[in-house]
């Protein structure tokens, strides 16, 4: 826990976005997580992504459950709405928030314990309902808050800090999300903001359920030689499959000459996702191929990162339910109470 207050002064040349805000205006309180925690980098990436997109902080709903990861919404976007839910029950709260006010950007931050153990049922159902939100899992493979027990995403055979091996198969949230209907699935690494920030930006503007599994090392309990979720292991074993550059609407698309084949995906808000595929025949719109690739790589001990699957045209929960186009709090009396004639019409349908 850091007692030094973070000074409000900023670098004089820090970029100012269209709202007149700098990145510093998107920060939250100083983190009380352990020094070096990957989760803090994820928070910093969210801050950077929102500042660069010039999104108004008060138009955000940030929700979380319980755990180290779920503390992090305090550490970004201090001028937004937030709800810290019961353990594993963030999806219910997020569902309610999004259905009530579809104009808010909804960010859920959860952990491997919160989403893959106690909350796995809720996780599965928010995915299949395709709630329009960005769901981030800070995945460190361990229960850091209770001093380092294996979590459900910990790889079989990897060891605890004291050398005891894990006996059980891991739950892969990326595969689950792919299988049950997420329309945007990515995996990244907290130590790689160049990859993570554009993914967060794309996930925020994506319509539908966007899921990013961020491997985020636990420096205190799971950053040792026997771990498969340590800084060193992930850096040595990650395979960047598809990188995504977020290009805002109206921004000039410049030509670059880095290796890999490019594919531009138009997003519903007019922006563009520029995908760079490092494997020629990988198609990030092919859900089955994505699933297979992730599974094969896992078998080989590789960690596939990047934007693994995207369907920019998929319908979300609002489409499925045919909800009103405006937030519920903006509906006036005539919309909420359409009168006796409308009631008779409804009753007639039910007879």
């Amino acid at each position, binding site marked *: 826990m850091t007692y030094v207050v973070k000074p*409000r*002064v*900023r*670098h*004089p040349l820090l970029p100012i976005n269209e709202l007149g805000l700098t990145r510093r205006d998107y920060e939250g309180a100083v983190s009380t997580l352990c020094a*070096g925690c990957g989760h*803090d980098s994820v928070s910093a990436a969210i801050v950077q992504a929102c500042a660069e997109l010039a999104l108004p902080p008060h138009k955000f709903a940030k929700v979380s459950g319980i755990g180290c990861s779920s503390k992090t919404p305090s550490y970004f976007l201090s001028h937004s709405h937030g709800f810290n839910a019961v353990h594993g029950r963030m999806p219910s709260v997020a569902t309610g928030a999004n259905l009530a006010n579809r104009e808010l950007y909804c960010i859920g931050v959860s952990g491997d314990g919160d989403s893959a153990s106690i909350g796995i049922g809720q996780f599965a159902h928010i995915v299949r309902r395709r709630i329009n939100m960005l769901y981030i899992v800070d995945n460190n493979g361990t229960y850091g808050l209770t001093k380092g027990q294996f979590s459900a995403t910990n790889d079989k055979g990897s060891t605890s800090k004291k050398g005891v091996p894990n006996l059980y198969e891991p739950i892969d949230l990326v595969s689950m999300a792919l299988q049950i209907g997420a329309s945007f699935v990515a995996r990244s690494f907290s*130590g790689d903001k160049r990859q993570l920030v554009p993914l967060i930006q794309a996930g925020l503007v994506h319509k539908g359920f966007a899921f990013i599994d961020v491997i985020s*090392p636990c*420096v205190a309990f799971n950053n040792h030689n026997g771990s498969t979720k340590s800084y060193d292991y992930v850096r040595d074993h990650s395979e960047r499959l598809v990188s995504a550059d977020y290009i805002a609407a109206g921004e000039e698309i410049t030509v670059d000459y880095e290796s890999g084949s490019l594919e531009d995906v138009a997003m519903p808000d007019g922006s563009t996702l520029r995908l760079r595929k490092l494997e020629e025949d990988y198609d990030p719109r092919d859900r089955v191929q994505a699933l297979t690739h992730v599974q094969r790589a896992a078998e080989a001990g590789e960690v596939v990162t990047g934007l693994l699957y995207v369907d920019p045209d998929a319908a979300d929960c609002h489409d499925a339910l045919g909800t009103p186009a405006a937030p519920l709090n903006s509906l006036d009396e005539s919309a909420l109470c359409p009168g006796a004639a409308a009631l008779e019409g409804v009753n007639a349908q039910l007879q």
Partner: protein
Amino acid sequence: MKATNIADPNYFHKVVDCQWACPAHTPVPDYIRLIAEERYTEAYMLNWDSNVFPGILGRTCDRPCEPACRRVRTEEKPVAICRLKRVAADHKGDISAYMPRVPKKKNGKRICLMGAGPASLAVARDLLPFGYEIDMFDRDPAGGGMMRSQIPAFRLPADVLEEEVDLILDMGVNAHFGYEITSMKQMLDMDYDAYFVGTGAPRGRDLDLPGRQEVDDHISIGIDWLSSVAFGHTSSISGKVIVMGGGNTAMDCCRTSKRLGAERVTVVVRSAFDVMKASEWEKEDAMSEGIPIINNRPPKEFLHDNGKLTGIVFECVKPIPDGKGRYRYEPTGEPDVVMECDHVLMAIGQENHCPWVERDAGIEFDKWDCPILDEDTLQSSHPKVFFGGDSALGPENIIWASAHAHKAAISIHLMCQGKDIKQDRPPEGVNLISQKMGIHQWSYDAEHDASKRFIVPHANKRKALDNIKIEVELGFDARLGLKEAQRCLNCDVQTVFTEKLCIECDACVDICPMDCITFTDNAEEGELRAALTAPAENDEQDLYVSESLTTGRVMVKDEDVCLHCGLCAERCPTHAWDMQKSVIHVPQLGSYATR
């Protein structure tokens, strides 16, 4: 870029901008911390050790440290370093226990100091503890040199001056005051082991314009006039006074005139306001006393009525920027202006002038009539004769005199000990001391204080203008001093990075409030500067570059606007960042700081 060599004393010294800018390299943050702890005596001694005249400088220094202060770049106004020095001096207790001891038994070497100004006094202070016998000669009846004769009492009260001058004289200087030196050869015949010339720049420039000779009685040279005021020979001035010149002497002349009864005082400067040599605050003080400063008026002629000065004719010009930060001047086409006056004080510059040094005494002079000196040793072409202060390199200010004195004292000491005065000079050094005391405890106050610079209270203006002895600036009281001390960023508490401990978790990058830190692929300096989290556009500030890390990247820190808040070290899980106080060893004889 190559990895930064932090063992080079200059690297971290440069990060302490104030100390680096100070000619005497006073350890500024160190003494400001002592003030914050109310340890005024220690703060005073730290100053006394490196700049010799803290009480005097705390009122009169030209403050090269303040424009250099990092706070100018992170916010706006520098820490009031100079006024904090005065706080240390004003609040100090008994310093006798801290004074260096001077041996009764002398080492047999005799040193002659010419002039009793700051340079000579500082040389005496450095040499006396080593057993040298010091003879000091000055034409004035008391010690202090220009500090006594040219700085008026409303800026520097006599008791402050005398205290610090006497502190040195009482260490055992054989003072020969009222001794006008007329011949260098005669002095050399006295066969001292070494000579130090610290006679200043005692000749004020004059202006040869039509009418100058006829009105001689009504024109005084600024520094001579100030001196005659200081020694009580002049106690009034009447009528309309024009002060010509734009330096600090001009400001002292006009403010003194105002106090001695002038009916009207005007400062007229040939150049533009913003290029005047006077310190910003001196100009402000003069103007706030109701003295107009008129710029862009070169003088053409003195007007007189049978030898009685009646006025001066000035040309009207306008400054045209030349694009290099300087001006050239063009006539505006307006008719010349005549300003009435009864007396003129000429403050248009000074020269270091030693008519008493015979040109065949073995000391060579250059074409500007300055002695030819070795920059490192301050030795002249006569091996036994050293120069320092204004007499060495032309008019500067007191803090330079202290700096020169330290150099010259080392040279004199080495020479007298039979050593090589160039090869055997003590080296510069740096010590780094971790400030970590516990998991979240630092031995310095890391918290950033966002206060604006506090304003120094002034004496009641009417009273101050009535009496030349009333000091205008009252200085910070203890409470304001403590508040101002909190504004210091502790730039000497350095961010020190250890490559092999770093796990590249980005914690430092994420927490740094000023975006100083970047992990990136190495490149040439220009490319790197553009590639950082925040662009590093201030080329005068170094980049701190690490060796290659595990991922092949390097850590690059832009020192420019670092607040030294310690958050990088606080959030580092592996102690790869540490906050370490840099103690810079500036070569100096018997330094208190390095003892």
